[in-house]
């Protein structure tokens, strides 16, 4: 277990370093001098020299890289080109909006998708199974930005039930929750389909196992057999999928955040790319990557906790 954790953390660190390297090279592959880009075409040579010294641009490239890695690992992601505020602070201000959206979106997808898949498998070929089958393919096929726009048009513009844009008044949790509904619906919808299909497939497989027949032969209650025996095993591959889904959502919330004008990480990165504000792009991508790795690690540990066979090979 300890060895496993050391290995996993080491591997995570390697992935983070690789991402930094890619981001760093990207910046240096873009034509033009960073200082000129940062200060604009009309900057004086003195200002450029001052800026270059401050940003260590006069050091060799590898040195610059090491400085950046060192800073990044200690939480210093540089400063915003325009406002001069630390990137870490800017990201921390925004990250809550993205995380709450991701949790809400995945959360409702799990609450609906897993029981739906489970029921569809237990009542195979019933109307519920068929409806679930059609709906899950439908929700997977429709892209989330389309769902966002339609949800916006129907519930906010036509019916006026829910607010259209923004993340709600700061400090007012109720208002923020109301503002969360539509984007969470939009990004979670396809996950309802994914999860229902995944759970259904693995439930069907598990419910055909001999140990399920054993449980029936010992006369256990159907509820215990389905949830205590069937889902207990069938959920394991789904946890991996959810972990990866969480990670994916962190970066793919960008559509929902743009459409609903939520000040999350996705929107931040998008705006910064538009404004060529590279320190923020770098920092944002790095934080998203870190979160992704963290969530996948948590899902792996969760599987180990649920499955003794996996636990002991760690």
């Amino acid at each position, binding site marked *: 277990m300890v060895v496993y954790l050391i290995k996993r953390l080491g591997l995570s660190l390697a992935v983070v370093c690789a991402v930094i390297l890619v981001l760093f090279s990207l910046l240096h592959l873009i034509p033009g001098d960073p200082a000129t880009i940062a200060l604009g075409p009309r900057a004086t040579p003195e200002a450029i020299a001052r800026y270059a010294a401050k940003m260590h641009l006069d050091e060799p490239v590898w040195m610059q890289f090491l400085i950046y890695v060192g800073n990044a690992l200690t939480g210093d992601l540089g400063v915003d080109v325009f406002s001069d505020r630390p990137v870490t602070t800017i990201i921390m201000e925004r990250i809550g909006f993205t995380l709450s959206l991701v949790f809400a979106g995945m959360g409702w997808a799990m609450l609906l998708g897993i029981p739906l898949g489970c029921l569809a498998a237990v009542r195979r070929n019933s109307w519920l199974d068929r409806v679930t089958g059609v709906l899950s393919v439908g929700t997977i096929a429709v892209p989330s930005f389309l769902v966002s726009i339609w949800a916006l048009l129907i519930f906010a513009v036509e019916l006026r039930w829910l607010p259209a844009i923004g993340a709600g008044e700061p400090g007012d949790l109720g208002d923020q929750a109301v503002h969360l509904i539509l984007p969470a619906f939009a990004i979670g919808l396809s996950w309802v389909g994914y999860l229902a299909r995944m759970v259904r497939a693995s439930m069907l497989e598990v419910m055909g196992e001999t140990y399920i027949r054993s449980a029936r*032969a010992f*006369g256990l209650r159907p509820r215990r057999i389905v949830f205590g025996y069937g889902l207990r095993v069938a959920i394991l591959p789904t946890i991996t999928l959810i972990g990866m889904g969480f990670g994916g959502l962190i970066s793919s919330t960008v559509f929902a955040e743009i459409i609903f004008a939520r000040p999350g990480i996705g929107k931040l990165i998008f705006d910064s790319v538009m404004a060529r504000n590279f320190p923020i792009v770098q920092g944002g991508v790095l934080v998203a990557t870190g979160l992704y790795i963290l969530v996948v690690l948590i899902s792996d540990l969760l599987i180990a906790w649920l499955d003794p066979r996996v636990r002991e090979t760690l």
Partner: protein
Amino acid sequence: MAKDMEPVPETLLDIRNLSVDFRTPRGRVKALRDVTFPVRKGRILGLVGESGSGKSTVLWAILRLLAGNAEVTDGQITFQDRDLLGLGEGALRATRGEEISVVFQDPMTSQIPVLTYARQMFDILYRRPNLSKAEKRRMAVEMMEKVGIPDPASRIDQYPHHFSGGMRQRAGIAMALLTGPKLLLADEPTTALDVTMEAQIIHLLQDLQSETGATVVLVSHNLGLIAELCDDVVVMYAGEVVEAGSVHEIFHDARHPYTRALLECDPARIPDVSRKLPVIPGDIPDLTRALKGCIYASRCQRVMPECHETPPPAAPRSGAGFARCHLLEGPLRDPDWPPPQDVLTVSRGGAGAAAAQKSISDTPLLEVEDLNVRFRTLGALRARLRGVTDPFVDAVLDVSLTVRPGETVGLVGESGSGKTTLGRCILNLVPGESGSVRFEGREILGLPERRFKPLRRDMAMMFQDPVGSLSPRKSVRALITEPLQIHGITDLDLDAEAERLADMVRLPKPFLVRYPHELSGGQARRVGVARALALNPKLIIADEPTAGLDVSVQGEILNLMADLQAEHGLGYLVITHNLPVVRHISDRIAIMYLGRIVEEGPAEAVFRAPMHPYTQALVEGVPQPDPDRRRAHVSISGEVPSLLNRPRGCDFATRCPYAQEKCRREVPPQFHPEEGRRHACFFPVN
């Protein structure tokens, strides 16, 4: 014997006119037709039959756990004056696991891997709300102790994968007996176990049954197991009961031609070690078609025209027994049937009843010398952290073996003995650590695959799982000629070659266009043999060549292998745990235990007078299909130690009834007491 004389005990379970259909895409399969037999209280009833006989369908019908496409079309199953077929879901759940319980076939798959035994056993006791958790736990621990699980109080909190196969089956028996059921159903309870474990489980079931007086229905294809355990026997064929009677009646005075044939095909019953084994030709009839007359008529040696038309009458025998055959009752009765027991009623397969004269050449084909195979158990980092200096296990240790052209060498061992690893290492599928493997005098151990590939034409493998080792998307024709294509042999007419090979393994031509799932077990084996033969090899390594085959067809495969050997002078290395089979087909036998060969010698001599105590235990451990030869004791206790903690001294010392101080101290060398025999025991038994 005594039980046969007692007055007829009351009936606990009465199955009457049970008929079950399965709805399949091919039509309705009439899997059970008019099955009637009583199960008497306090007795062990054996339900015996080959695959497709419907014996398991009967068992699952009793519990009402038939597959979703099954339909009970007729009949009653009366258990203590209740018709189980008419019970509602709630009443049914109160019966299952509480009054009727089951011991399952494969303890590896029938126990949920993610719950501890304690959790699984509490679940079974959920109908006892007045018991506290501590009381339930005490009950469970007591039951685990009763079935012989050491240290039950702590092992009950472990998961199934912590238990060895034999221990798992013990735990499975504990779970089945936890509620004190009146009726215990046992579905092939020892099929998944090794010989020495099987003997222990049989013994345990005997003890528990005589102690609790429970009624048992034992479903098995293993005649030895049935003879060893049962009081009454019901013989099924293709969904019908063909004969029923006491165990002595069935094994000593079988009347139905099928029962006779089945007993004659069992290699354990054939006293001479001739190469040719008796077989029942043909396959079970297609149960989707309308059936009339006798179900066995198409394969019966004594078939008469009426057999195809008129259903045979039931000829009663003592007690509730009967046999359904025209030869026994009615106008066609033959007073000379059945013939005395020593007369064979089925032929020894195919052309030339006697085994062809063998010629074994003296130049060795395959020579293995001091071969060692090791596997890494821990990664370098983990090993260092845990302070393990030697993170390896020895799967094969100092093994020497010779196979000559025209010779069959049987390699026998239980699971974990390293026999399969040895076979794979010879074929360069796992790397050897040290030693030497020579093929026709040439060193082949550790050759790179590029240089080994031409040798694969001379050395073929017959795989254990006949259907699983065939690609489901290829036709038989493509499968048979696949080895030719892999070796880039294009100057042959592949179609003609496929036909020649199919002919060689006696596979009818229409089968060439079929796919693996359309083949029976025996036919899939034939395809496996044809694939092995495609490149005209000199050596065939056969891994469990008859595993999963019914006794009536395993003879066909073994006879075929013997014929091909006589014809082409092939050398065989047969890897198996099936002793009766290996005795009939092998010239020499090598017994493996924990990676070492503990005894080797001519097959006949090894079986007649085993020298190593382990060989003796194996030979005596096979249940004999004769109720008069039941064992009084189990010859060896305990289980095969893990390779990770190999015992000090002799590997077998921990289980050996004759072990002495020296055995626990020193590793025994190979002794050569007479020409052609060797063993590794300080104190040989014979």
